């Protein structure tokens, strides 16, 4: 199997197998989690098949035509970056889905849970391998939607609903900004294909000199920042912690939130090397890194601490990818890529521990915990290694990438010169200090110290191997990557970095570098970090006091106010626009018809009523017309529902008859059938309501209604009279094309049908989707009415 096929299957397999998951569940019952893990493992193996070529420095791209006329193709680009993300997504996927077997109670709605996890995994894989921007956007929004459903997994908890809505509003809206950015980028470069722009020097120069460059960058960056919870958009991530813990570990620490980072890495070759890139990406990164690291202190929920820590760690990555100058486009790329991989391992591990602790103690409040090391020795060791890696303690992998971060910061500061040579490394160290402090808090708060006398269950113990083994595997990776860095560096980091920098990359990562500036910065971090930890409680108290005193200094305050206000405005709007009685809508619709038809008719037609009208109508047609007029009058005048409805359907049948005389059998057939069905449904509905018009119509309303009807029918009459004269000059008849091409292109003699199912098949697909939605709509309408009673 070639790599392209392997990747295509790896992306679509989760969707297909998730589709049949409810059927499989009937057989496997509560073992269904293992089926989901097996699917993830299959995807992982398929990606692994494509890996060797990429490690040797090749890139593969292949496209399938989708909408070629718009430049939108279905296209996969397989390079170091996408394969590394593919491994992270499917690998963590296997781990999380296996772990879920122990975590999720058998009483939960398991098929929905695993189905959505698999949908998410497929979307995420599709996104990282996308070469076409529109395709990337579609998968991108799919991850937002699946994330929304997973955060809101417990539908009855108000906070889950709040968190899910918040995440969807922010990330999906950010995605729309990104789409706008892609469209501008397409307008400048003329292509939606990312590798084409990446590998073409002249297109990049054109873009860098273009006046819309900054707008494009800002739009795409908003998309990335909202997804990765950077800058003011960070507020959705802490609320997303309402999701089941494995979901938080998978989506909101290891994969989905890294989509923004992925996007930044993906467009790095296109936009880097400019001041705007450095100021925006690194600027927002440094700001978020410090703010989120600092705000982690006042969190008492262990998942809350991890959420803020994730925001801060993602900001590290942003900062590093942002380090750029005109001559050195990617100073922090290697460090960022390595840290990205490491963060996925240690943060997922910590989330799994958080899940274990919450599962065993039935609380997530860190203030109620302590001294659990004796009761949960294995969990204690796992948590310590994960947290120490995050804090940057050697010989764990977090230490290596943090050293690289410091090194890149020193270099960036040095290249900028002046005060920056001190400022940037100092800010980096400050970020490290916060990380160190809250990492230690996690270990100390949960496992060390004294066990509180009340609030915890009496018997707490390590969980089963189902939940421990995934975490132990991650710990193994943490140590392996730390002690033998050449394994990840050679297999993942070098191909990725060379893909981003567009040149061969050779990295030498070692545990011991000698006494270098980064090493000194690490020592300073530990020293200040320990000092800060001694004041941890005081800082948290100060933050709480500050928050209570100045509630308006917070993004959440403005988010809540905006959403509340929007609810208010929209409900007013819909009350005004949808008052209820169908008459209002019909009136509005008819008035619109008058305007829409009158204006073009007056503008285009030379005379409103053509002079040479042909009134040579056969007698039998005249008779039909007379009957039609009688039926129409009957429908309008009859005072009882049943005769009125029958008059109306009589009119419909007469129209059908007319179609036969006018030689339109398809139309006649459709008309008669639809009329029959509509009449039956109509009769069923009116059988339940009083059989007389009880409403008294004032003469004023009557006059107005008659006026509108007369106006509409005159307008339609004039339009039809004109239409029968043939096509008005600026337009051409469209029917010639279909008459000529129907047989050779689609092999059908019935042009109407060929247009419906072939030439305009996409429209028909939309129409039948509407029919299905109408079916659901009626179902909801009829059944919700029942609930109110």
């Amino acid at each position, binding site marked *: 199997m070639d790599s392209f096929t392997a990747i295509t299957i790896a992306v679509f397999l989760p969707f297909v197998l998730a589709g049949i998951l409810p059927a499989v569940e009937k057989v496997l019952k509560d073992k269904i989690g293992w089926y989901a893990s097996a699917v993830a493992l299959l995807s992982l193996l398929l990606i692994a098949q494509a890996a060797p070529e990429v490690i040797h420095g090749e890139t593969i791209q292949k496209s*399938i*035509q*989708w*909408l*070629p006329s718009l430049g939108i193709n*279905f296209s996969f680009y397989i390079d170091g970056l996408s394969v590394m993300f593919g491994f992270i997504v499917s690998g963590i996927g296997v781990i999380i889905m296996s772990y879920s077997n122990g975590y999720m109670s058998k009483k939960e709605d398991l098929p929905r849970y695993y189905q959505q996890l698999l949908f998410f995994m497929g979307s995420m894989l599709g996104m990282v391998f996308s070469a076409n921007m529109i395709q990337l956007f579609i998968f991108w929004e799919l991850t937002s939607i699946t994330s929304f459903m997973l955060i809101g997994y417990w539908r009855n908890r108000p906070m889950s609903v709040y968190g899910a809505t918040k995440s969807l509003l922010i990330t999906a809206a950010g995605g729309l900004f990104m789409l706008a950015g892609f469209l501008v980028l397409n307008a400048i470069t003329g292509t939606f294909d990312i590798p084409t722009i990446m590998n073409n020097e002249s297109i990049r120069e054109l873009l860098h000199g273009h006046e819309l460059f900054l707008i494009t960058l800002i739009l795409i960056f908003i998309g990335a920042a909202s997804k990765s919870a950077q800058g003011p958009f960070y507020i959705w991530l802490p609320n997303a912690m309402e999701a089941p813990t494995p979901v938080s570990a998978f989506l909101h620490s290891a994969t989905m939130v890294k989509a923004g980072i992925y996007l930044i890495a993906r467009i790095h070759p296109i936009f880097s090397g400019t001041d705007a890139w450095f100021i925006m990406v690194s600027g927002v990164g440094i700001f978020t890194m410090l703010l989120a690291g600092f705000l982690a202190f006042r969190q008492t929920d262990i998942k809350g601490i991890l959420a803020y820590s994730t925001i801060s760690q993602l900001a590290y990555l942003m900062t590093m990818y942002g380090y750029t100058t005109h001559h050195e486009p990617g100073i922090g790329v290697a460090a960022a890529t390595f840290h990205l991989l490491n963060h996925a391992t240690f943060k997922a591990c910590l989330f799994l521990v958080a899940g274990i602790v919450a599962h065993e103690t039935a609380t997530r409040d860190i203030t109620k915990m302590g001294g659990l090391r004796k009761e949960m020795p294995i969990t204690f060791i796992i948590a310590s290694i994960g947290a120490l890696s995050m804090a940057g303690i050697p010989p764990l992998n977090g230490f290596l990438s943090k050293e690289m971060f410091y090194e890149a910061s020193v270099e960036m500061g040095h290249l900028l010169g002046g005060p920056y040579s001190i400022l940037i490394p100092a800010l980096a160290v400050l970020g490290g200090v916060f990380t160190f402090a809250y990492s230690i808090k996690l270990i100390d708060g949960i496992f060390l110290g004294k066990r509180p006398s009340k609030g915890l269950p009496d018997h707490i113990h390590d969980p089963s191997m189902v939940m421990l083994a995934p975490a132990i595997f991650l710990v193994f990776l943490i140590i392996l990557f730390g002690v033998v860095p050449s394994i990840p560096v050679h297999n993942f980091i070098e191909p990725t970095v060379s893909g981003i920098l567009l040149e061969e990359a050779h990295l030498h990562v070692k545990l011991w570098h000698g006494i270098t500036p980064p090493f000194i910065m690490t020592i300073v971090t530990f020293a200040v970090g320990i000092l800060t930890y001694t004041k941890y409680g005081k800082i948290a108290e100060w933050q709480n006091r500050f928050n209570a005193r100045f509630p308006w200094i917070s993004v959440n305050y403005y988010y809540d106010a905006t959403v509340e206000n929007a609810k208010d405005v929209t409900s007013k709007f819909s009350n005004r626009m949808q008052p209820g009685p169908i008459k209002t809508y019909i009136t509005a619709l008819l008035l619109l018809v008058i305007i829409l038809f009158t204006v073009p008719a007056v503008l285009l037609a030379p005379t409103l009523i053509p002079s040479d009208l042909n009134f040579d109508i056969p007698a039998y047609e005249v008779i039909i017309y007379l009957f039609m007029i009688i039926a129409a009058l009957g429908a309008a005048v009859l005072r009882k529902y049943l005769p009125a409805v029958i008059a109306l359907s009589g009119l419909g049948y007469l129209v059908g008859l007319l179609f036969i005389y006018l030689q339109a*059998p*398809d139309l006649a*057939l*459709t008309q008669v*059938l*639809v009329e*029959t*069905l509509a009449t*039956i*449904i109509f009769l*069923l*509905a009116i059988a339940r309501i009083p059989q007389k018009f009880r409403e008294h119509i004032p003469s004023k309303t009557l006059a107005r209604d008659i006026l509108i009807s007369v106006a509409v029918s005159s307008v339609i009459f004039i339009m039809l009279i004109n239409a029968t004269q043939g096509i008005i000059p600026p337009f051409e008849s469209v029917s010639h094309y279909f008459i000529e091409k129907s047989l050779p292109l*689609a*092999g*059908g*003699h*019935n042009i*109407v*049908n*060929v247009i*419906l*199912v*072939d030439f305009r*098949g*996409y429209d*028909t*697909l939309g129409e*039948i*989707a509407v*029919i*299905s939605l*109408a*079916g*659901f709509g*009626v*179902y909801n309408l*009829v*059944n919700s009415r*029942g609930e109110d009673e």
Partner: protein
Amino acid sequence: MTTLITKTITKICLPLVILFSISLLLAGHNNPGGGFIGGVMFASIIALTYVAYGLDHIRSFFDPDWTNWFGLGLFLAAATAFVSMAFSYNFFRSAFGFVHIPLFGEVELASAAVFDVGVYLVVIGGLLSIFTNVGDDK
């Protein structure tokens, strides 16, 4: 409406109309007909049966979930749109060919016909699920 005459006529018409609706569906590519008309015809006769014999009575021995029908129909229609992509053609590209079958002679096979079957199922499912919902007394 549930007179003996209605019931008898419905009983006779039911198989004929269903066959006719299928023939409309299949003939649609070259003669008057097609998925939409065929679907409406199928839905009408089932609706007539419901009316003549009563919804509850029919349901006691024949109660398909019509929502599944339009689900399947939508899937079929969308699938034909995507299948062309698997053969490296663009989205919604249609194909047709002629095969010779004994007794029938030359028969045209078109991918658009599968799409039309999708339309047929959606129309039947959509209309009848609306019908049963509105007509349900509960």
